Every structure is written in structure tokens, then in C-alpha cells.
């Protein structure tokens, strides 16, 4: 579904602190599967995730989504693709403080101009399915780590994306909560979503639900299984 060929990414290009985070990646992500990018911190796995998720463009190389080359598209089209195709669960969850959980969930849908009633019904349904229904009207900063993550997942799903991208989803969770998260991943997979994660948590990499593990080191692929 997503194909990367010879993708490189540099930060601060042309300056004295130029740094190549990715040094030529060839990779295919298959639809409907769960893929984990594994590697030590600084190995480039998060950068890879941003390129796959259309959050950033590669310095060189191609990123193809289905049959479309998206590596050269201008910002506006990328936003469009990102909004309809990808849902993001960030490591720090990145919920907006001071507003309720349900509003946080609905944020990605606002610019699409959907009917408020439908939208709020859908957000409620999503939160129910993730067992955080009762927290819908709590402010985001009052939620526990696990709850905040599930709100973030609900937010990622509000626009019904094909691909869910999670950056270090278990980094801030204890084992029990991590297991719960993997349970959610399983339901996502069962409903036909493609899931992409970064993680160096063995608990994640070695679960049955994960189909592929891609190992990175120093911006290069080391192992794909």
C-alpha cells in the first residue's frame, strides 16, 4: 500500500549541523497489516513514520501511496491526504489542554465541515468502544495516561482513516495498559485498518498481532521480518 524507494531525509541541510536521519530506505507497508518500526532512539524510526504519514517530505527518494507519488506534492494536497488516510497517535498524546476529551476527539473533523450532531454521535460511539465514554466531558489534562492515549486513539479514528500511525504507543504505559493497547490494535486490525507503530518495547514487537517488524539503525534498514 505504501512504498518507499531510496528515501533519504536530512535535517538542517546545508548548515554546519546537517544531519541525515535516513540514509536510503526501501520499504513496502502492506495494507491491513500491523507493522512495527523498531530501533534504538536516534535510529530514524520516528522520522520514517513522519514520511510515511505525510507529515513531512523526504529530502530525496520517492514515497508512493498506492499508485500515487506523494513525495513531491505541495503542502495543501499532503494535508488533504493526511486527513483522509492517516490517523495519528503521538507519543505525548498531544491533546489540547483546557477543552473536553470529546472536543479533542472531534478536532480533526472540524475543517471537513461535517454536521455537528453526526460528528458528536460518532465521537461518542468511538469513545464508548474504547471504554472512555464516561470521560467524554472531562478536560484533557485530568485524564490518566491510559485514558489520554485512548482519547488520542479516538481522535485518530474520527475521520475513519485507512492507516493508524502510533509513535511509541507503550512508552508511557505500564504492562497492563500496554496489553490493553495491543488489544485495541487487534480490533483495529480486525476492522481492516493498517497499523504502523514505532517501538523498542519487546512486549510490542513480539506479540502475535504484529505482522512485520522493521529494524532500523543509524538511518538504515537492518532487518525486515
Amino acid at each position, binding site marked *: 500500500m505504501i512504498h518507499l524507494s531510496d528515501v533519504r531525509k536530512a535535517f538542517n541541510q546545508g548548515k554546519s549541523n546537517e544531519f541525515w536521519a535516513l540514509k536510503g530506505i526501501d520499504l513496502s507497508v502492506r495494507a491491513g497489516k500491523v507493522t512495527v518500526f523498531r530501533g534504538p532512539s536516534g535510529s530514524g524510526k520516528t522520522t520514517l513514520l513522519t514520511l510515511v504519514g505525510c507529515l513531512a517530505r523526504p529530502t530525496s527518494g520517492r514515497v508512493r501511496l498506492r499508485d500515487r507519488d506523494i513525495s513531491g506534492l505541495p503542502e495543501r494536497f499532503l494535508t488533504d491526504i*493526511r486527513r483522509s488516510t492517516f490517523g495519528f497517535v503521538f507519543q505525548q498524546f498531544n491533546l*489540547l489542554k*483546557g477543552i473536553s476529551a470529546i472536543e479533542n476527539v*472531534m*478536532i*480533526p473533523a472540524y475543517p471537513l*465541515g461535517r454536521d*455537528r450532531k453526526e460528528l458528536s454521535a460518532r465521537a461518542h460511539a468511538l469513545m464508548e468502544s474504547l471504554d472512555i465514554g464516561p470521560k467524554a466531558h472531562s478536560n484533557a489534562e485530568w485524564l490518566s495516561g491510559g485514558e489520554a492515549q485512548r482519547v488520542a486513539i479516538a481522535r485518530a479514528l474520527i475521520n475513519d482513516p485507512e492507516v493508524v500511525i502510533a509513535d511509541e504507543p507503550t512508552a508511557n504505559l505500564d504492562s497492563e495498559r500496554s496489553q490493553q493497547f495491543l488489544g485495541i490494535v487487534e480490533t483495529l486490525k480486525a476492522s481492516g485498518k493498517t497499523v504502523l507503530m514505532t517501538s523498542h518495547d519487546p512486549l510490542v514487537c513480539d506479540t502475535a498481532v504484529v505482522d512485520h517488524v522493521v529494524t532500523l539503525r543509524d538511518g538504515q534498514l537492518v532487518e525486515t521480518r
Partner: protein
Amino acid sequence: MSVWLHKQRNLLDFTLSSLSRRRGKTLGMMAVYTAIVFVLASVMLFAHAIRQEAAVVLAKSPEVLVQRMVAGRHDLIPARHLDAIKAIRGVQSAEGRLWGYLFDPAAVANYTLMVPTNPRIEPGMVVIGDGVVRVRSADPGDLMSFRAHDGTLVQFKVDKAIGRDSALVSADLFLVSEDDFRRLFGIPAGLFTDLAISVRNPREVAKIAEKIDAALPDTRIILRDEILRTYESVFDWREGMLLVLLAGSILAFAIFSWEKASGLSAEERREIGILKAVGWETGDVIRLKMQEGLVVSLSAFLIGYLLAYLHVFHFGAGLFEPVLKGWAVLYPKYRLTPFVDELQVATLFFFTVFPYTIATVVPIWRAAIVDPDTVMR
């Protein structure tokens, strides 16, 4: 269309949410903003209304006034000048006016004494303005006495009072008969304070003024146009003292709001990153911030303007009274006719709402074009 509408309303919802997150800051901002609009609008409404009032009311004041000057000072004018003036072609009528000031030690106030010719006042009687009624608590039938120029006592009986309706032109008037006026001040017959002249053809006023000036070199001439112009410049809002005094606070507010509106905190920067990461376009983010600016500035403008309107036209511009009143004892109680200049209101709108909105948008523009992947780093 409905998609567009839903989108705007959704954005507005979010705008209000994000404003209410910083409730203290937003409300404080709006309060200061409203106060500024209120004061500015009050000054503008008041100044325009009073200028308009003067223009309407004084439109029928004497067309030409002739005063005598002696050694560069105003002096009483002899009645024989009337004949010289009446001889000038185009002069319709000319008559001597008697007026002056009388200090009343009982009220510590100055009255404007005048001798009306139509209708004439009976000797010993007086018609008083509303301000005089108030400072002396005088009723019709009451007696008031004053020391004349030679120390003798002159007594007046209040005939009637002039209604409060016209207080703006008559509050301190003290209308007496010609005999009483001359006795009070020791002005012999044949001398007047000044001469009022009316002209047959209004377009010839300047011409006739020139002729009078030539015929009577010891006089100075005041035209009605000059009277009207005097009141046009009084309270001219650009020259208004209040605005000058306010300029400092307006500038302070401008700096304050620029700082508040344009200073992006790290928190706000992060939020913009999040919004972009979850699929907002740069345009949506800018629209959001613009709405925030509009919500604050539009509400502040409307509330401030409405309060100012009520203040000036329905509560007698109470805040300006102390400023205008100064040491005056005889300040008139008047209600301004609400002459509103729409163009002025539009100007106020433009200069209060737009700068603020723009001040909110400019820094966002710079922040919103950052790459959305910053939130992942």
C-alpha cells in the same frame, strides 16, 4: 454550501472553546478593549452631537454683529452708528443689543443679562434661565435684588422661568427690561453693547460687512458664519482635549494588545503544530485565529459602542460633565439630540476591529507555515 456553513460553525465552536480556555486573559482583554471603545465612541458621539446641535440651533443667530473698539478694547457703541449702518444698501434692519454679565454673590455665579425686544420685559420683572432657577432655587413670584453700579439696590420679581428644554442656550439667562439694565449698570440712553444687523440677501453678507468696516473704522464685525465656525471647531474630535489626554492610554492599549495578540507562547505554537498534524490546513489555523480576534474585537466594539450611545444620549454624558463643567456653577442640564455620524462610527469600527484582528493573524501566519512534523520531534 452547507458543508461550508458546518465548517465555519465547527471552527467557531472551537474558537470559543479555545478562548474560554484562557478565560481570564480573554475577559480582561475584552474589558479593557470595551472600555477604550466606550471612551472613544463617547467622545466622538458627544462631539458630533454638540457640533450638530450648535449648527442647527445657532443657525438663526444674528447675521452680522458690530462692536465698537476703543484702544483695542470692546466699548459701548453709540446709537448714531445705527443710522450709518441703516444707510448702507442691502441692510434690512439694525438694532442695538444690550447685554452683559452680572455676578451674583449669593450663588457665586455669573448670569448673562439681556434685554429682549420681543417680547419686552416689564420694568421690575425678570425672566430667568433654568440654571439660575437651580442655583437660586427661585420660583415665579420670588424677589431677587442686586446692587447697582452706584450702590443702590435694584429689585427684580421673577416673572417666569425658561424651560429646561432650551437650557443649552438659555441656562444662565437673566432677561430684564431696558430701564432696569441701564439703571443697574449706569449705561446712559443712546449707548448699546453692540449692534445686530440683518441683511436682505444672505449672499451679500461679506460685501456689507466690508462696507460697514469702511464706514465705521472703530468697529469690529462678527459674522454668523464665524459663530458657527467657532462651534464647529469646539469639540472637533481631532482637536478634542479628551482625545489628546486619551492618546497615551490608547497607545498603551495598542502596545498591550499587540503584545497580547501577537506574542505566541510556546504552548500556542505547540497547539498549532498539533492542529496541523491532525489534518488542519494552514488556512484553517489562520481562520481560527482570525475568528478569535474577531470574536474579541467585534464584541468589544459592539458593547463599547452601545454603552457609549446610552451614556451620551440617555444618561446625559455624565462622565464628561466634570471635564466640561470646570469651575462652572451654572452648568446646564441638557439632553443631547442623538445626531450620529455613520461615517464616524464606521471609522471607529475600522480603527478598533481591524488592527486587533490583523495583530492576531500576522504572527500566526509565520507560525502556521512550520512543518507539521515538529510535534513528533
